[in-house]
Each structure stands twice: as structure tokens, then as C-alpha cells.
């Protein structure tokens, strides 16, 4: 930064407190921010000043509205912290850990979560995804997406991957469809969201966006 700030212009007793306030506000540039952070970890007095400012400014937290929650995130957290329960079941395939969330224990946990999240009054939704060689029948009860396949499974080198495409037009993976049917915990599906199944390399689209042909797609609608 080209201009220098004369910290000495402030009364010394205020200097630390203002730095703590600036740290809490978040206005400091990267290096100063890191310095303040380290100090908060080492210096109890400074850490107390930080807490006090957090308290003073906490009223502004009301400005934050709730944001969407991606149902794929919690299983990733659990798997990072506690290990993927059945990661050993697919040793050869190297499926990324978060894609294994369809496995039993995690599904149960996630379904419970999704049920807690979802207002109970939502009407059930469904979609018939009909493709040339394969079709999927999907229904969503506000917490769990049930999806059943009619037609052949993907060949040994490929996987079917299910995507949800909302108003922003960005496909979001709901996971791989390997069996004849699957139950997927989901919290943010609504009427008009398009479900699509694409053919992907084994293990799914490598970078989180679909790469293969879309085999079938349909929008969720109220039954």
C-alpha cells in the first residue's frame, strides 16, 4: 500500500482496541489481518478485546438472511471428521469420498437431517425422465428423492450421474445412480427444478460439472 497510516495519531490505550475492532470488522488487508489473528491467539488481553467487539457488533448479524444448503456438504463434513463409513467398500474405483454418501449409514443420517430441514407442508413432487434407452422415475417428498431406473445399468466403464438444475442453470450433482433405485436426501428441490441423468466416466464427472451426454431429463412438478 502506498500511503501509510499514522497509528501514532491515536491514543495508545485506544490503539490495540481499534486494531481489534478493525479485525472484527474485517477491513484489514491480508497481512495486517494475519498479524491480528496471531496476536488474538497468543495475547489474552487482545483476544478479550476481540470478543468484546464481536459482542458490540453482533447486532449486525441480523442482516444475514438464510442461504441455500447443499445436501452434499454435510456428508463431506462427516467423512472428513469421522471417516467415510464404507469407503473401504470400493477400493479399486477411487470414487471421491463425498460421492460415497449414498452408502447406508450416511444416508440414514442425512435423511434425518433433511427431514429436520424441510417444512412438513411441501406437496410431493415427481418427474418422469424418459430417454431413448433408459428412463427414471423420480419422486420427492420434501426430504428424500426416490429414483428408480427402467432400462439397462451403465456399462462397466461408466456411471449414471444425477443432476439438479435450478433457476441459476448450474447443474448440481445429486450423486451416482448405480443400483436399480436410490434414495437421496435433498433439501432444496422445488417445482421447476430439472433433474437430469448424464453418462459419465466411472466415478462420476471429474470436476463437478456434467461431461457426458444427457440421457434423460425432466422438471419436477407437483403431483
Amino acid at each position: 500500500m502506498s500511503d501509510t497510516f499514522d497509528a501514532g495519531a491515536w491514543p495508545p490505550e485506544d490503539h490495540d482496541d481499534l486494531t481489534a475492532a478493525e479485525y472484527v470488522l474485517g477491513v484489514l488487508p491480508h497481512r495486517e489481518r494475519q498479524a491480528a489473528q496471531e496476536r488474538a491467539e497468543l495475547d489474552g488481553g487482545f483476544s478479550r478485546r476481540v470478543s468484546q467487539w464481536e459482542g458490540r457488533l453482533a447486532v449486525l448479524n441480523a442482516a444475514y438472511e438464510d442461504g441455500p444448503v447443499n445436501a452434499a456438504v454435510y456428508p463431506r463434513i462427516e467423512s472428513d471428521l469421522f471417516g467415510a463409513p464404507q469407503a473401504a467398500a470400493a477400493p479399486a474405483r477411487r470414487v471421491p469420498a463425498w460421492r460415497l454418501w449414498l452408502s447406508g449409514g450416511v444416508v440414514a443420517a442425512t435423511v434425518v437431517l433433511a427431514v429436520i430441514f424441510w417444512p412438513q407442508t411441501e406437496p410431493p413432487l415427481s418427474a418422469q425422465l424418459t430417454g431413448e434407452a433408459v428412463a427414471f422415475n423420480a419422486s420427492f417428498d420434501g426430504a428424500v428423492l426416490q429414483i428408480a431406473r427402467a432400462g439397462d445399468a451403465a456399462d462397466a466403464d461408466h456411471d449414471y450421474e444425477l443432476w439438479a438444475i435450478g433457476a441459476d442453470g448450474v447443474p448440481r450433482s445429486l450423486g451416482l445412480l448405480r443400483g436399480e433405485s436410490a434414495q437421496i436426501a435433498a433439501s432444496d428441490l422445488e417445482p421447476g427444478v430439472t433433474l437430469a441423468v448424464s453418462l459419465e466416466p466411472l466415478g462420476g464427472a471429474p470436476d463437478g460439472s456434467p461431461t457426458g451426454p444427457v440421457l434423460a431429463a425432466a422438471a419436477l412438478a407437483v403431483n
Partner: protein
Amino acid sequence: MPDDIIGSLLQRTATQDRSAFQQLYSETAPKLSGVLFRILGNRTEVDDAMQEVYIRVWQRAAQYRPDRGQGISWLIAVTRNHALDRLRARPERAGMRQEVARDEDGQDPLDRIADPTAGVEAGLVAKGEARRVVNCFDELEEDRAAAVKGAYVQGLSYQDLAERHGVPLNTMRTWLRRGLLRLRECMDR
């Protein structure tokens, strides 16, 4: 004040109680996702950040001190810190507010507190306390109050604020520091 449910879930999480952690997630994920969205403004990054924030929460839950504030405030502090670390670590220019439109929603955070329909939020801070704090913001010059709120809520840096208010960076910093001292003086009164 009603029992602080989030605070007690945090204390149970600190004892490695996984079911408490799971419940904590389900109670707070939408709020923390909202914080990350507001500061980072990028869906992919929000998912990654959510993951890191909750891992940090699991690891640091024991640092939560009920006597220093409500559980949700502690969680939001952890979340803001993480988001700001990410934002400030971006290359200098990229750290600027990219989506101006999102900044200009014109919503004053304090309006939401004054609004009785925002009752859900009232739990964040005790009501009388909130009123007092709002009054302290009212005592500030309008543009200084706006700078403090913009910095806190959206993660604007001194650089961002200086450009937005059309003043040199040093002037901005002097303004803001004076505003902070006035706020402290008023709130601690």
C-alpha cells in the same frame, strides 16, 4: 432470555457428541450459508467454505464461552472470520467487491432489527440491548455508520470502502476509527 439452544449444542459438541454436532448443523447451516454467500458471493466456494467452517466448529467448540455471548453469535464470528480470510487472501484486485449489484440492495441491516416481523432474529441479541445498539448507530454520521455496516456485513475492505465513498484510503480509515470509538463509547455507556 430463553435458553440458548445453539449454545448448549455447541457445549455438547465440545464433548465430541456427534449427534449434537449433527443437530447443530441442521439448526445453523442455512444461517451460516447465508453469511458465506453474502461475503463470498460464489456458490462453489460457499460449499467448500461450509465444509471448512463446520470442521473448525467441531475442532474448536470447546473455545465457545457462554459468558461471552450466544452460541449463534460465536458461530457467525467463526464463519465471518473464515470468509474474510478467504476474501483477503484473494489477489489484491480480485479481493474487491465483484458484484456491485449485490451490494446495492439498499437494505439497512438495522432496519431488520427495528422491524417487528424480523422476530426470528431477535434471539441474536436481547431486545433491549439491540435497541440500545441501534440507537448508537443512529448517533453516527450516516456515511460512517454505512461504512461500518458495509464492512461488517459484506466484508468490504478499507480499499473497497475508500473507493465506494470516493475518499483517500487514509481518510477512510480515520473516519472509520473515529466512528468505532464513538460506537464503543455509546455502547459501553
